[in-house]
């Protein structure tokens, strides 16, 4: 079960992911990112502080946006990943493809730097 909340801070969309993302709940994550992209945000932060678990389907969602975000010059930064979750990203090699930071301020900083 997952609960996803979106919050806008000065042109930056923050998607907070709370709970576990498995095959069925990955659809919600996909929807949230798609909405954010559709609404034209250029900086998207994904708050993973309360993300307990992510399955391969959930990782697939992040993966599927890599190309699109690059084409549209949208900067997405994930932050606050728990060790276990970070490990999953690491093993799959997604850590090298996504921007991942420890906390929100660093993530925001990176997003701002990249979008310049």
């Amino acid at each position, binding site marked *: 079960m997952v609960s996803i909340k979106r919050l806008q801070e000065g042109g930056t969309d923050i998607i907070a992911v709370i709970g576990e993302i498995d095959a069925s709940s990955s659809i919600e994550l996909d929807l949230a990112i798609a909405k954010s992209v559709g609404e034209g945000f250029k900086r998207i932060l994904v708050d993973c502080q309360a993300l307990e678990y992510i399955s*391969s389907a959930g990782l697939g969602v992040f993966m599927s946006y890599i*190309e699109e975000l690059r084409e549209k010059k949208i900067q997405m930064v994930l932050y606050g990943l728990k060790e276990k979750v970070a490990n999953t990203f690491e*093993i799959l*090699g*997604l850590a090298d*493809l996504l921007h991942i930071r420890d906390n929100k301020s660093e993530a925001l900083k990176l997003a701002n730097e990249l979008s310049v």
Partner: protein
Amino acid sequence: MLKNKAIIRLAFFGAAIAWLILLFSEITILFSSLKGLPPDVAVWLPRVMLGVYIVCLFYYYKFRIELDDSLNFTDLLWKVFATGLITTVISLVFRLLLFLLGKTALATNLIFNDIICQINLALLVNFLVAALTSWKRLILYQKSKWLLRSWALFEVIMLVVLLNDSLGIALSQYTSLFINIAIGILVLVLSANMRWVAYLNFRQKWTSLLLLLLTFFYLAYFFYTVEKSTELINEKTQAFLDYRAQLIVLVLFWFIVIYGIFSFLVILFNLPTSSVFEQKLEEVVNFQRISQSIQTEQDEESVYNILLESSVSSVFADAAWLEITGANNDRKMFTYRVTEQESKNIVDHLEKNNIKGVLDAGSEKTKNLSKHLAAMRGSRFRSILAFPIIVKEETIGTLALLKELPEGFNKEMTRIVSAFANQAGISIENFRLMEEAFQNARYKEELKIAKTVQQSLLPNRLEEDPGFQIAAFSASADEVGGDYYDTLRINDHLVALIIADVSGKGTTAAFHMSQMKGIFHSLAQQHMDPKEFMQRANQALVYCLERRSFISASYFIIDTQEKIIRYSRAGHCPVLYLKAGEKESEFLKDKGAALGMIRSKDYCNYVETNELKYAPGDIMVLFTDGITETKDSKGEEFGNEGLAAALNEMTTATAKEIEQNIIKRLYEFSGTKNLDDDYTLMTVKFTNN
């Protein structure tokens, strides 16, 4: 059946014989009395024979009419009518004969008159008994215990009266009066049972009235005929069978007449309301049609049509429409004698007047919106009744009924149509549930096939080499996963190994797995660098993997000549390696993104070839994340630690033994035999050769 027929024949034969005896003894007695001679036969014989005649007829009709289940109410009345017709015709023939004879000696002959009189009496009795049997069935329709007892009592009393008549016992005035009153009350009580009338439809009621009327006519005719001839004979002599002395005949006669009159009146007064009863019956039938539409393999559309039809006919609506909003927001309109434009006008009018009714799909209340319609110009309709159709607590549509009369709907109608609408909702919900169940069954069947496919993709046999021992194990949960492992010999000293995990489950996972197998078998043979293998595999998969799917894999080439392992990891779990002589194993963490992660040439930047020199006794364990993600009852994961520990305690064992130990430890940890993921293990131990 044969037995019944035999009884019918026997009864008929008995009645005929009894009557013939009656007739001859009667004539003999009359003749003797006229001549002033003592009769040759006993004077009681005609009375007794009349009794026997009645009893025989009673049984005859009992089997002819009472036990024949195929007869309905009008059939019963028809039987009575037909019997009456036949007897009357016979009687009329005799009357004609009498008329033709005119004032001849024969016509005035007392004995001849008596014969005619007896024939008429016999015909009358025959008719009465036939009617009695029919009345019995009508009265006992929807019988109660109490009613059955009353009828039994009536039959017993009639038998007593019959016996009394036959024996010729003279009763005192008071006794006979008492008996008459008792019989009268009983007859009235029995005559109150008219339930069958309610089940006649309008036409049947008219038919019944006509038949009853004709029956009365026959009765009157017979009564007149028999009475007149009896009077005639009575003037001359007392020595004949006077029906007036036979109480049973009178009882039968009055019972038939009274019940006949009651029936006639009840039917007559029920005529105007019969349409209501028919209406109710139709409602029940319509209800059944809606609820049974599932069994008859109809679809949602037909439920809507039946709903519209039934509602219209139940409330006599002049027009109606049914608007359904489907799953994909597509609107379906079913109309009856109203154009879509007209219905749209009405909806617009109601909206314009800001009426929050059922016509907006959000409301769940049934509303009579007539008063709002009264103000609408240019519409022929003056009354409207609207209902929501609710499926799973969600309004999926609106049923609107229209009438040209103002205030055309009453509470009763509202209730009926509301019930229809509810039932339709239930039927549709059932339809959808059935559809779901069907889909589920198909999905399960698909999974079964996928699982078989998946199993068949795993190798039956692993590549053997004197340079190493190898063991592999794979188990999957009920749901099909996408774990894959395989081996392939490239040449005499090179062996390729692969382990992979396809993201997702089910048929697509099995499908991607088969693609992986194809890629492995075609690329590995060409002996390429592991990095190149991954690049080419990625390139091949880009075109067949879905947007969110990827495959994690590790590819190894073992060179037994150089004692070198060259491998590439693409997002797969790092390999667990234990060096000979050491106590602690380690995970070889290195760079590599999963296949399908990057769908361009850039992929080569995210994958690399690693090289490892191995020594005899080294152990390598390849696995999928199902192993490390296995949870115990507290939700803790087996983890890399658990796996490493299971290997560390078996440093000197063979590959097979190590594998078995890991599986054993894994099951101990999870505490259950039920898998909820896929587990795949491939263990390699290098030897001295």
